[in-house]
């Protein structure tokens, strides 16, 4: 019933002015959370939102909020991992005059929102999305706290070289994120003087990769790099191993989910993944994991630490700026000085990207990811 009321209210709001509502005494600081809460990536979105909620609660409880007791309030904008939907969501957040936005998971859906937030001059902490395409599209109000595709391509290059791989097959899914990572890796790989045996595309949701697997096997590649998400990645890994592919298989950070083991089963043993720092491998995250599990009854997902950091960073910047003035917050964000956060130190390059590579290499062992040490 309350949902129905919400509907009526939002209908009314659409026709009327939105801004004049809810002017209480110590007004809360409203922060937007832009994550996919519907669509295929909804799991990640929910996980990220949970982590941010945890961060907000901690800030509200510990320091009694920000700026002399103003509580942090979160509003979601569902990007659904779709460009048009996320622009709608972003302009909705902008209309609600949020002080800042934290989030951004799918690069393709994050990219067009940069303009929306840029035009509205809203500080934006991008926590997960890391396509290099985002860098030139950033008008300057956004910072990226996840390492970019460039860093990952470098990690991949080092890893494959360390394994003595000569000939590499790269497979992506034809979306902005995975195509970007695939292109970057290809360029880095060929520049280093190696051979790309196959450079392939698959459609999202296509289940049968047998023709592709044959082609990879026929190409003589001794390693396969899957640059896209876990769901189809699991299928590819499975079919590669089923067809007797013996070489190295590595997946990008879109596939570092534990669910890869659900889908690929046995075949995921010995698969490598490049990963942003997940909670399991962060020394400082023990308390975070415990809190998260206590609150949400499940383990934090791969992007939870970054999401948590993102919100903390935003709060820190607001505190440092001493007001909710956008320009001051943006300046504060960019001045991040390498302070140690949950997932490591944060400071930014002149392109507003994380100044260090945070990628680690994981290996599938016993049905879960473990830290790989060569």
């Amino acid at each position, binding site marked *: 019933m309350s949902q129905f009321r919400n509907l009526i209210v939002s209908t009314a709001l659409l026709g009327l002015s939105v801004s004049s509502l809810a002017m209480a005494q110590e007004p809360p600081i409203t922060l937007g959370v832009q994550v996919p809460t519907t669509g295929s990536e*909804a799991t990640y979105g929910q996980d990220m939102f949970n982590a941010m909620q945890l961060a907000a609660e901690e800030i509200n409880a510990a320091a009694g909020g920000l700026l002399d007791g103003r509580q942090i309030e979160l509003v979601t904008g569902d990007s659904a991992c779709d460009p048009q939907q996320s622009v709608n969501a972003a302009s909705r957040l902008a209309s609600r005059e949020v002080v800042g936005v934290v989030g951004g998971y799918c690069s393709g859906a994050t990219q067009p929102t940069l303009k929306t937030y840029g035009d509205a001059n809203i500080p934006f902490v991008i926590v997960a999305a890391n396509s290099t395409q985002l860098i030139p599209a950033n008008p300057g109000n956004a910072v990226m706290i996840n390492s970019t595709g460039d860093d990952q391509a470098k990690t991949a290059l080092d890893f494959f070289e360390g394994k003595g791989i000569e000939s590499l097959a790269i497979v992506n899914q034809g979306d902005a994120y995975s195509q970007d990572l695939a292109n970057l890796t290809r360029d880095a790989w060929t520049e280093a003087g190696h051979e790309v045996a196959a450079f392939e595309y698959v459609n999202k*949701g296509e*289940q049968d990769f047998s023709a*592709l697997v044959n082609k990879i*096997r026929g190409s003589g590649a001794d390693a396969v790099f899957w640059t896209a998400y876990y*769901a189809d990645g699991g*299928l590819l890994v499975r079919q590669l191993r089923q067809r007797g592919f013996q070489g190295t298989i590595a997946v990008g950070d879109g596939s570092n989910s534990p669910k890869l083991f659900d889908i690929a089963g046995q075949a995921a043993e010995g698969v490598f993944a490049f990963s942003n720092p997940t909670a399991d491998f962060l020394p400082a995250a023990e308390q975070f994991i415990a809190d998260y599990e206590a609150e949400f009854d499940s383990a934090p997902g791969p992007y939870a630490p970054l999401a948590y950091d993102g919100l903390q960073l935003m709060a820190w910047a607001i505190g440092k700026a001493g007001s909710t003035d956008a320009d001051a917050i943006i300046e504060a964000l960019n001045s991040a000085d390498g302070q140690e956060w949950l997932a490591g130190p944060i400071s930014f390059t002149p392109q507003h990207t994380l100044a260090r590579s945070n990628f680690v290499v994981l290996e599938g062992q016993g049905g879960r990811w473990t830290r790989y040490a060569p």
Partner: protein
Amino acid sequence: MTWYDSLLQQLVDGLVLGAFYALVALGYTMVFGVIKLLNFAHGDLYMTGAFAGFGGLSLVSGVLGAGWLGIFVAMLLAMLAVGCLGVVIERVAYHPMLGAPRLSILITALAVSLVLQNAALSLTGGQYTAFRTDLGFGGLNLGNLFLSYNQIVLVATAGVLMIALELFVSRTAYGRAMRAVAIDKEMCRMLGINVSAVIAVTFFIGSGLAAAAGTMAGAYYGSIWYFMGFLIGLKAFTAAVIGGIGSITGAMLGGLILGLLESFGTHIPFIGSEWKDVFTFSILILVLVLKPTGLLGKSEVERM
């Protein structure tokens, strides 16, 4: 691998893929036959079938295990459940639309597709569900040719289902009635045939076959999600049209042809695999422009 082995492997893989397409295409074609409707929700029935099969397997795996036996029983349960769902959809959504403008019926079918997809989305939260089975990775290595046991069982199952359908349609009174209804409903009513019942049976069978394909795909590939019906729906639709929509043998043939096209399409020299679907759709358009009724379709002059 020599080019010859590779060719053979392609052929085998194409047939496996084609078997799925054919099973799904059959439903399209049968429904089109009896009510001249492109049932856009058909791919979503395949998806629903995969989830029903998943549910069925978790129900029976305790007793029968999650090997092929369990999967078969789960598949039969899924066929039954989704078959009934198909009948309900026909009754609720399509039957009241008889006589409405054709495009409206098409949009209704799209709406049904959206309903099924979004219902599944809401129920699963959009997550991929791992379809766990006890199926092994084993297979036959014939020289360089690899044929997994699962592939063999899969193609055999699809084959049995298709032969059963073919026998049903050509040899039984109900099958004859189904063909007759596709040709002239009014005449059928004059002969005492309950046309609504025949249409219901057609939907039941068509949806059941989609569910069979869905369950097998889930078990074979190992993961299912709410949007899995879209792509195969499109492909199966293409297969049905290539074969000649309305023709049952045509759908089987179209499915196999499309499977082979895709399998070989990945290997066209000088063109990357990213052009595979462009290739598939171009063939489709070519077939339609050169032989508009498809390979086995009856020529029929009809315009909108």
